[in-house]
């Protein structure tokens, strides 16, 4: 669900206002900070407690990750007769292929659209839900309910809504002269995928924005109310800055969601016919590795994605953690 390091935390009021304190020294002393004053000392016990978690992580995380990196430098025979070292040629093959470039472009556009739309709609609904009193809990339940629907299920439902024969949305659009052909027309499919991906992610953003809003102290709201009569300006200058930690956290989560978690939606909606349909980079890693049996190429793509994730994480640490102080 979450690959990032920080959760937005209700924290103190000062931290919400951007109080930085000793943010820098804190970062370097993550381990020291978590120490309790009173601790047990034992030569064996801590390792015993850690062993199961570490064993699982080494076998199922580090081993495959190292394998991905190493096999990206080899050309593997599709019939399993050994492999040859080819240096960086898997990488150059991938990067210079026009198919990969167009998929990368689609992934970028898709990620930006999904992130922007689901964040802004989630925020809009949270702001409204924070205001109403009558029916507040009903709205909240309705808006949260679909959070837990799995991506392939939402893909399946989306596929039906956008189905050429029975889909209500397609019928409605044909009155306006738009004859959608999801699965056949590249842009129609891209549109449908984006709608489904946004639909699935709104509740998540809603939950976090709403809890962020409800953590804004009443005293601040009242002070803002006195200082500033325009509701929009009050939101823009007082409430939104206070939501910044939540928003930045959600930004990373939504980008990782659009990049990786949408796999289920895409896999269901392209129905095993990726040829003329938009797919994302993760789908291509899977398709090349599993269907195409191109282990080297697929691994090189994996490593490229790993680098993307690293860059995202560093971005989060350097620019976001510095500006926004948690805890």
């Amino acid at each position, binding site marked *: 669900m979450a690959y990032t390091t920080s959760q937005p935390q209700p924290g103190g009021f000062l931290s919400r206002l951007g109080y930085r304190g000793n943010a820098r020294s804190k970062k370097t002393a993550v381990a020291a900070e978590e120490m*309790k004053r009173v601790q047990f000392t034992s030569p064996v016990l801590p390792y015993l407690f850690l062993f199961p978690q570490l064993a699982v992580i080494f076998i*199922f995380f580090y081993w495959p990750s190292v394998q991905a990196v190493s096999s990206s430098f080899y050309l593997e025979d599709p019939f399993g007769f050994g492999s040859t070292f080819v240096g960086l040629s898997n990488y150059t093959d991938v990067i210079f292929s026009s198919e990969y470039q167009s998929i990368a472009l689609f992934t970028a556009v898709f990620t930006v659209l999904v992130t922007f739309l689901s964040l802004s709609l989630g925020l809009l609904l949270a702001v409204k839900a924070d205001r*109403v009193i009558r029916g507040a809990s009903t709205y909240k339940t309705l808006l949260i309910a679909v959070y837990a629907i799995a991506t392939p299920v939402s893909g399946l439902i989306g596929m039906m809504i956008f189905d050429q024969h029975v889909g209500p949305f397609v019928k409605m659009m044909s009155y306006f002269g738009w004859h959608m052909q999801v699965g056949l027309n590249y842009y129609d499919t891209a549109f449908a995928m984006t709608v489904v991906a946004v639909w699935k992610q709104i509740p998540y953003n809603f939950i976090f924005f709403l809890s962020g809003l409800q953590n804004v102290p009443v005293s601040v709201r009242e002070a803002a109310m006195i200082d500033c009569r325009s509701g929009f300006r009050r939101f823009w200058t007082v409430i939104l800055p206070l939501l910044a930690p939540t928003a930045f956290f959600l930004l990373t989560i939504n980008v990782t969601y659009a990049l990786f978690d949408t796999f289920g939606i895409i896999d269901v909606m392209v129905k095993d016919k990726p040829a003329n349909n938009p797919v994302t980079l993760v789908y291509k890693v899977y398709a090349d590795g599993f269907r195409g049996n191109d282990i080297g190429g697929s691994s090189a793509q994996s490593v490229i994605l790993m680098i993307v994730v690293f860059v995202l994480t560093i971005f989060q640490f350097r620019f976001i953690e510095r500006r926004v102080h948690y805890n």
Partner: protein
Amino acid sequence: MYRTKFSDHLVLILGSLFLCMPVVVAFMTSTHTAADIHMNGLSLAWGDNFIATYEKVLTQKGGFTGDITGARMVMNSLILGIGFAAGKIVLSMMAAYAIVYFRFPMATLSFWVIFTTLLLPLEVRIMPSYEVMSNLGLLNSYTGLIVPLLASATGTFYFRQFFKSVPEELLEAARIDGAGPFKFFIDILVPISRTMIAAIFIIMFVYGWNQYLWPMMMTTDESFFTLMRGIKSILQVWVGSNIPDYNEAFALAVLAMLPPVAIVVIFQSWFIKGLTESDK
């Protein structure tokens, strides 16, 4: 104070409709017959085929080899969800306990070793993970379905945060009373973590139940298919059929989303608490 405007309600109603309508349509449509849906499109009205469709989906043997029923898929999904949630809680509580409550030389290193797993989602290392699993002979097994998913730090972080917020006096008092590390863990820490455990169990169950890519790769033997995996295969059967079984596909979708949606709605407050307040 702020006075609620009509437009606030309008936005919320539209938002709720946008989010919930597809689910309602899916459920209502699943109560019609395939031919009916083919002729009249998706439906918002209750059909008369509810029992027949669901009975067929749950009990009729389907798939390519014909030995998997919907009920079996529900069971496999439950095994995956519960097994994953339980495994996650046990492993991550133990690891977090060691990191927070013990002074030992490798503490920082262990922390970073676990921390790094947050950087690389499973989707990115999917091919080599598959190879590792086939080397270990774990394809088509519950162990292979559940254990590799435990290799991430999310749970450990939740518990680490929680343990850090536990008052120091508790341990001091326990030590004065002569409690050792095991006794403190089992008799004090686990009981006071009950709410946290419940919240994490819910989140992890939903996460496990909803897994798609991993079960899809790990299981070729249909008796291990989960509901998510079943959705994939019902779509593969579709290609080329005259009147696709829309009703059955929707029924399967409803079965697949019912438990997670019910859990989120029923345990709403725990769920939100677990998600947003990892340090409480």
